């Protein structure tokens, strides 16, 4: 029995070994990989899909999928920038409104999936196209440059936080720990809390395991689906704001193919595409692996096209391992 427990714990955390091995390989080929600037850079890069991966984790846990998050990010970028630059709105108000809009798009996805009964892959594919189109329409296909951000690391948050909290002042290093990475950590903590401590998490796992039995156990499955797609919209919206703060320019072409990367992170982190199985810590590992893989490949001068091939392979292998272990369990 003890040996089994050890094996389960080992299997649950095997993904971290992959991460360590990956770091070791990149560090071996390029010592600069482990330099402070590069680590800071990676943490900045991963934060934006790390944040979105939390919503996607919930969605995949209930055996759904959300293909619209890339478009949500583009639209959030464009809307937020439009409100601030073209209409002179207050920054906070613009952020609030654009995140609310992202949540509403999530609710719309939930409505299509839960109330109408469109398969998630089609419903969210439709909204992917619709809202990408909206982003193009609103921006006229042109970038909206010069969005408030003087500071590359989510400046306004940083200044605001630095002025507010002594803890950041005393660390004095907040410039090194990017604010967006801090936001990501807070989001992961919140996601982990929802999954493990709140009853919503229990419901998500139940629905992913068996929707009908969940409904008959008293879970309002449709309501939960609305909630989950809305959460996915919310986290995508937040990721959009993070992206905007980094780029300083709203692009209607931003985050094309982004959902693909996030799904890869989540599935690599051990969340089963069949639903019902997965842990937040695994997703963190998945995000870090993909983030350092991208950064490592760039440092090794791997071409963008090769990177695509590698990422596709990673996705196939991750899903393959999941499906293969299920198959073996069955026999």
């Amino acid at each position, binding site marked *: 029995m003890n040996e089994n427990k050890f094996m389960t714990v080992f299997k649950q955390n095997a993904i971290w070994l992959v991460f360590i091995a990956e770091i070791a390989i990149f560090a071996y080929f390029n010592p600069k990989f482990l330099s402070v600037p590069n680590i800071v850079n990676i943490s900045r890069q991963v934060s934006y899909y790390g944040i979105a991966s939390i919503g996607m984790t919930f969605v995949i846990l209930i055996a759904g999928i959300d293909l619209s998050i890339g478009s949500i990010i583009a639209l959030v970028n464009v809307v937020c920038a439009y409100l601030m630059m073209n209409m002179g709105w207050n920054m906070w108000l613009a952020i609030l409104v654009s995140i609310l809009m992202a949540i509403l798009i999530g609710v719309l996805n939930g409505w299509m999936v839960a109330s109408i009964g469109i398969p998630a892959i089609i419903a969210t594919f439709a909204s992917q196209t619709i809202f990408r189109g909206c982003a193009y329409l609103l921006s006229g296909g042109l970038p909206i440059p010069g969005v408030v951000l003087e500071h590359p690391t989510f400046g306004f948050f940083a200044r605001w936080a630095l002025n507010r909290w002594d803890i950041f002042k005393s660390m004095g290093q907040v410039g090194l720990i990017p604010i967006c990475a801090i936001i990501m950590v807070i989001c992961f903590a919140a996601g982990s809390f929802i999954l493990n401590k709140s009853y919503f998490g229990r419901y998500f796992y139940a629905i*992913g395991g068996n929707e009908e039995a969940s409904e008959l156990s008293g879970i309002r499955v449709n309501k939960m689906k609305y909630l989950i797609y809305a959460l996915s919209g919310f986290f995508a919206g937040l990721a959009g704001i993070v992206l905007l703060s980094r780029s300083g320019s709203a692009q209607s072409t931003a985050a094309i193919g982004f959902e693909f990367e996030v799904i890869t992170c989540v599935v690599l982190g051990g969340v089963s595409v069949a639903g019902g199985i997965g842990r937040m810590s695994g997703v963190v590992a998945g995000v870090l692996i993909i983030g350092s893989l991208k950064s490592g490949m760039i440092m090794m001068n791997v071409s963008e096209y090769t990177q695509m091939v590698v990422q596709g392979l990673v996705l196939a292998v991750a899903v393959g391992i999941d499906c293969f272990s299920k198959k073996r369990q069955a026999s």
Partner: protein
Amino acid sequence: MADDYVLELEHIRKEYPGVIALKDVTLQLRRGEILGLIGENGAGKSTLIKCCSGAVIPTSGKIKIKKEAGGEVKEFSRMTPQLAAENGIAIIYQEFNNVGELSAAENMFLGRPILKKNGIVIDRKAMEAEAAKAFAQLDININPGELVKNLSVGYQQMVEIAKAIQQNAQVLIMDEPSAPLTTKEVESMFKVVELLKSRGVSIIYISHRLEEIFRLSDRIEVIRDGEYVDTLITDKDPATIPHQVDDLIKLMVGREMTQKYPPRKPCVRDDVVIELQHVYGNGDEDISFKVHAGEVLGLGGLVGAGRTEIAQVIFGARPKDSGKIIFLGNEINPKAPRAAIDYGIALLPEDRKRHGALLTNSIKNNISMPIYERISKASVIDSKFEKATAEKYREDIQIKCPSIHQLVKNLSGGNQQKVILAKWLAANSKLIIFDEPTRGIDVGAKYEIYKLINDLVENGVAILMISSEMEELIGMSDRIIVLAEGKMMGELQKDEFDADTILTYASGIVPENKKEAS
């Protein structure tokens, strides 16, 4: 002369991580015999036959096959589906492997079609002729060109058997073949089985229904907890059968079973828990009945009579069209199971694995599922209370498990049913609807479920019990209502209980003497 064994399984063992499904099972099948294989649920019957088909790889043990009489003995440490087919082993599973959209003949030749001379086009005519030949051999009348989905369940099974015979199977393993069939279909299946035996085919027949085992088998092998227990020679003398049944049950359960239904103190109270007044909807018409506190109301009828449907309406899983449901004195109209649960109504569905238990969740999570919102503050679960609740019911109703964190899919059918019951007890239900409470549950666990039902009514819970097992219906109910085609056909008080009357009602006929009364 040594026995002519067509199939021998020697010391088969199968371990899964954390579970030993088969400890040590030995089985010898003689040429041309019918061997009954029995054991409680979870005894390892299914795993054993999956070892024969190649679906499961044994951890250790040997499989010996002698396809032809006097031929050489082949020895295997594992099978594959292909090896099984080559060596003449065919399995008829409970769920058929038919493709509904293809014809009977096409199903028989699935994966190995007869082609025309050009080697490309399927020769439908030749296949249909071959299929017709196979059906004729079995003395059954199926049109080979008919789509399988249009065939009755009994005929669908026949297509599978014919396929096995057409492939020259020498060993036919049948897993609960009678479970999906009607009484009439069971008879024709028996005929085919006996016909096959007379042709020298050897058959392993697995069934929960002991009377079938006695009717068909030459020998009976009993396994328990993954171990070989004993093999008996079947004595078909009707006088000795009751005695043999007792012996077999003892062997299967490993202890004495004195009574089938535990005694219950009279506990029916006067207060009505639920009353239906002329409820229409979900395929049912004009259903009216009352269930009192401490009463078991049995719902009898044939499959499709509308019993599950009325349960769904009460539980809020389907809407009603008209009529009133009065629960504890107030009219209610639950629009979703959640609403019904909050009133105190519970449903243990017929199909446990699909609708009842959350198989991929732990015992603890299953039990607390309906009460999570109540035991959470600002959505944070009171995890101490959650654990204590699960431990309490594990103790109270004796859920056999190493820990409350175990996944429900690893439990036996009886224990799964107990987990589902525990969930409703935790939700403090006043009316519990059991839909086929002991379907697919073995003899020993059945008795425990009955005892739990008794405990419930003695504590004043009202129970609505849907059952297709006549004995169970009569043995457990205080009153019985019989439905047919969505309508109420009659009500029987305890002193009127009689299998014939119930069957007459169930077939939609109101007996003469009752007509005037109503």
